[in-house]
C-alpha cells in the first residue's frame, strides 16, 4: 500500500511513529553505553528501588518498543497499530 492510498489517520500515525522510531534508532549507541556502564558500575542511589536500578529493565524498556514500532512501519495494519492481532 502506498502513502497516498492510506487513510489520513494511518498517515498521521505513521508520521509520528517514524519520528519516535527515528529518535530511538539515533539513541541506540548512547543507550548501549548507558546500559553497559549501569551494568559494570552499579550505583546504589537509595531514592530508587532495586528494580529501577536494573540495567536489564532499562534495556527492555528501551529496545522492546523498537520491535513493535518497526512492525507497524513495515506493514501498518489496524491490528499492528493498536496491538491486537489482525484478521
Amino acid at each position: 500500500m502506498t502513502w497516498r492510498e492510506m487513510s489520513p489517520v494511518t498517515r498521521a500515525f505513521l508520521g509520528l511513529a517514524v519520528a519516535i522510531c527515528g529518535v530511538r534508532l539515533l539513541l541506540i549507541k548512547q543507550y548501549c553505553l548507558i546500559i553497559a556502564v549501569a551494568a559494570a558500575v552499579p550505583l546504589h542511589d537509595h531514592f530508587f528501588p532495586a528494580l529501577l536500578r536494573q540495567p536489564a529493565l532499562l534495556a527492555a524498556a528501551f529496545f522492546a518498543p523498537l520491535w513493535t514500532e518497526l512492525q507497524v512501519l513495515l506493514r501498518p495494519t489496524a491490528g499492528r497499530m493498536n496491538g491486537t492481532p489482525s484478521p
Partner: protein
Amino acid sequence: MTLSAAVLLVHQASYFFATWIVVFWAGRFLAWLAWSGMADPEGAGRKGPFLAQLLTAFWFLGGAAGKWTAGYWAGEPFHDLFFAHHPYAVYALLRAWLDPEALRVVATWFSRGVVVVETAMAGVAFLPARVASTVSIAAALGMWLSTGDLYDVAGPVIGTALAARILAAAARPEIAGRRER
C-alpha cells in the same frame, strides 16, 4: 511505547532524559489515533489537530516553567552549559569570534529568547491547525539547530505537528463539503 517511556522516566539511569516525557505523551496520542481515530476517522480529523496542539503547548510550557528563574533570565545556565564549553559547532564558532564579555551578553539574550519563545508556544493550542503545525515545526527545528543533541526532543514534536497537519488537511474537504450542502 507509552509504558516503556514511563519506565525509562523513572529508571535511575534514564530519568533525566526529557525525550521520554515527550514520547510518553506522543505514545498516548498514537494510542488514541489507533483506537478512536481508526474507528471514527471523521472525528479524528476534527479533534486530532487540537489534541496534537494541546500536547505541543504542554511540552513547551513544561520546558518554559523550568526556566522561569532568575538564573535563566540572566543566561547563566546557557552560558555555563553551552556557550562557554559545549563542543557543538555554533558555540565553538561563537567562542572563536567573540570575547568572553560579548559571549556572556549573547548567552543572556539567547536565554531570554528561549524563555519567551517557549512560554509563547503555549499559545499554539489556540492557533488554526496549519499555522500551529508550521509554528511548532519551526520552533522544534530552532531547538534542534541551536543545540544539536536535542534531536531526541525535537523529533517527536515535529512528528506530532506533522500528524496534526495531515489530520487537518483531511478534515478540510469534509468541512468545506458540509458548508456547501
